[in-house]
Structure formats: C-alpha cells, structure tokens
C-alpha cells in the first residue's frame, strides 16, 4: 500500500506541474557546448553508422569515435570538474539530495540502484575520459529526478555509478565527468 501512497504523491507533484528542470549555471552549458564542438572536430570525416548497419560497421565506428574523442580530450588535459564546475556541482547535488529526501525519495533511491554497477555486475571506479565498461549495466536515473536536472544535449546523459553521478557520452561511451557523492 505504501507504494501506492508514494505514487499518489509523485503524481500529485507532476499534476501540479512542479517538475521542471532547473536552469543550470551558464558556464555548465558553455562547457557542454565546447565539448560538443571538440567531439565534432575529433570525429570529423568519420562516417556515421548508417541506420541499417551490420555489426562490424557499428563496432568499427563506435571504436574509432571513442578513441578519437578520448585522444582529443586527453590532449586538452580534460579533468574532473571541467563540466561539473563548482557552481553546477553544488546545484546538481542539491537537486539530487532534495529529490532523494523528498516524498518520493525512497522510490527514487531504490530506482537509482537498479543497473548501478555498484550493486549489479562488476563494480568499477569511474575516471574522466575512460570508456564505460562494456560489461557494466547502466543505472536508472529516476524519471522524476531526471526531469528536474538541467537538460543535456542529445547523446549526453547523467548516470549513477555508486553514489557518484557521471556525465556520459552515450554514443561513444566516454565518461566525460564525475560528481562524487552526489547521492546522500
């Protein structure tokens, strides 16, 4: 019965149109934009995998893009905190913690453990610019939380690894940044 009560609270919040993404600090958007430009430059000339590809084409394109992005970022000295700037980190951590301590917090916390490599499969320690391990699942980001976090460009996603929040280029599987202890 508790789950239905929780759902009612979430639904009420949504119905009241309370769930809106927070506006991120301008610097966060600017850094994401800079990353997209770097990616575009690094993968220039690489063919997009056509929408009717065979597995070999998909693998070749994916591997080449990931390598090119990793190399380009390494050349610029990419490091933790480049995208999650202090202001963005503070804001995002606040949103996550308020969601997880709020009325739907228990459900959100439970969902964030689903697919989280710390609780399913082989745990790993995320590092900036590493490839997300092929054998690791992707965590759920609770929908009500996702709708409150700053919106990201297409193909860049938030994911949890343990209590850390990462920014992942889902297309190339490159970990772009890490926000440790984002979850309470």
């Amino acid at each position, binding site marked *: 019965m508790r789950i239905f009560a929780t759902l009612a609270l979430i639904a009420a919040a949504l119905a009241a149109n309370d769930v809106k993404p927070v506006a991120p600090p301008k610097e966060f958007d600017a850094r994401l934009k800079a990353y997209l430009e770097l990616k575009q430059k690094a993968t220039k000339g690489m063919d997009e995998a056509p929408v009717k590809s065979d597995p070999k084409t998909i*693998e070749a394109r994916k591997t080449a893009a990931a390598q090119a992005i990793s190399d380009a970022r390494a050349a610029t000295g990419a490091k933790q905190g480049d995208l999650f700037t202090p202001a963005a980190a503070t804001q995002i951590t606040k949103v996550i913690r308020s969601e997880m301590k709020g009325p*739907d917090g228990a459900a959100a916390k439970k969902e964030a453990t689903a697919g989280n490599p710390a609780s399913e499969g082989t745990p790993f320690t995320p590092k900036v610019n590493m490839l997300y391990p092929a054998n690791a699942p992707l965590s759920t*980001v609770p929908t009500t939380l996702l709708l409150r976090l700053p919106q990201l460009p297409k193909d860049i996603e938030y994911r949890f690894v343990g209590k850390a929040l990462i920014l992942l280029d889902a297309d190339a599987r490159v970990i772009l940044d890490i926000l440790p202890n984002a979850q309470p």
Partner: protein
Amino acid sequence: MRTTLIFAAAAASLWAANPPLAKDSLRFAVIGDTGTGDQYAIQLASRVAEARKTFPFEFAVMLGDNLYGGENAKDYEKKFERPYKALLDAGVKFYASLGNHDEPSQVNYKNFNMNGQRYYSFKPRPGVRFFALDSNYMDQRQLSWLEDELKASGSEWKICFFHHPLYSSGERHGPSVTLRAVLEPLFVKYNVSLVLQGHEHFYERIKPQAGITYIIAGASAKLREGGIAQSEITAKGNATDRSFILMEIDKDELHFQTINQDGKIFDLGTVKRAQELRKP
C-alpha cells in the same frame, strides 16, 4: 468505464489447439531479455521458431537487454543472429527496445529495425501502432515525443513496449514507480491498451491497472533468483520457466498465449481494445 477485460481461459488446451488464426489478423511474438547466447537462449529461440510453423507471426518485439556483456560484432552473432537465424532467414522482422545492458549503438543495427532511433513507433497494419520506448532514460525530450505520437496516431490499437516494468511483483527489482508516474497518465489519456515490458527475468501478467493490461516477459533467456513475491496485483506469474508470448490482434480483441521452453502454454487470454470499451 474504461476497463480492459481479460478472459482467463479455463480450457487452456482447447484454445492452444485452436488458436484464432483469424483471416487478416495481425500476429506477432514477444521476447524479452534474450541476449545471453547461451544454451537456454538458444533453446527458447528454437521454440519461438517452432511456434511459427503453426502460428505464422509477421514480426517479433524485443523488450530490451538484447545483448548482455560485450557488444562486438561477434556478440551480435552469438547472442542474436545465431539463436534467431531460422526466423531471420524466414524474413521475420524484429523490433527492439533498449535495456539497461544495451548500448545505444544498437539503434543502427539493421536487424533491430530501430532506424537510428532510441524510441520510435511503427504501424504494421492500419489501426495498430506500436511505440518502442527507451525506459533507461525518460527525459523531457522523449516524453514530449511520446505525447505527440500518441495524440497524432489515430490508431485504434496502441501498444507500448520497453524495458523497465511499471508494475512488478519482482523481489529483486520491483516496479519503476517514478517512471509510472509520468507514463501511466499518458497511457490512460490516449487509450493505450497493452504495455509489454522486460527487465524482470520472469513472466507476470498484472491485473488491469487503470484499464491497461501490463505484461512482463523478461524470461526469454535468464531466470531471476528470488522470483515473484506474493502480490495482489498478479493475475498470472511464472518465475520457473523461460518463456515467450504469441499475440494475435483480430478486430477489437487481442488474443495471447504464453509458452515455456518445453512448448507448453501456461497463460492465455484475451485483451479487449481499450477505446472500444469506452463507446456507449
């Protein structure tokens, strides 16, 4: 009153022996969490191919976790192309959705028919539209797309499929409550009749919720330790068999039968089209 009716058939074997196979009906298969490539996945895939001899379905929908572990070219072959070779050779189309073990690059794989999109819809027959969602990442972009698609669809039958279950009695994962909070109001508003999901490695048909039939069919390769908790929402559950579903849409009714690795039917029934029931 918006109610989807389930006729739990007492005479299961009778229906199995006499599936409707109605003229001009739409027939399809449902498989979920298939991507191990192990002996169990191969055995189940053989059953699906065998079933098509007596129940010639046009296509299959996949409920995510299509490829566990690595996703190199050899993995596609081992975990999908080889087990489902007979059906691929026969021209059966597969429509995939993404699970939490799947890389988004699968959207470009020709045999998954996703056309480069993580969420998409297709209309195999006039009046029937399927919506494949990416439940891994339900952001505002996808929600807006879904609402626009549902609103514009005009199809009498609307069927959604994706990975994470909105209702589940699973002891390990359980329901995706925050996902349900945003999706179910849309399903109700736009008369979705049926929702198919995976993630839990068992079969569970949920008693109609808000007039919608929800089925979890994530046991096409793995079985979940822990299984299904005793729950008042379960209409039929099975955590000990691997399984797949055959479905047939005939006018305002959708008939289904769920089959295990030994070819035995353990659940069957009929879902009435949601919109039809709302007519005076």
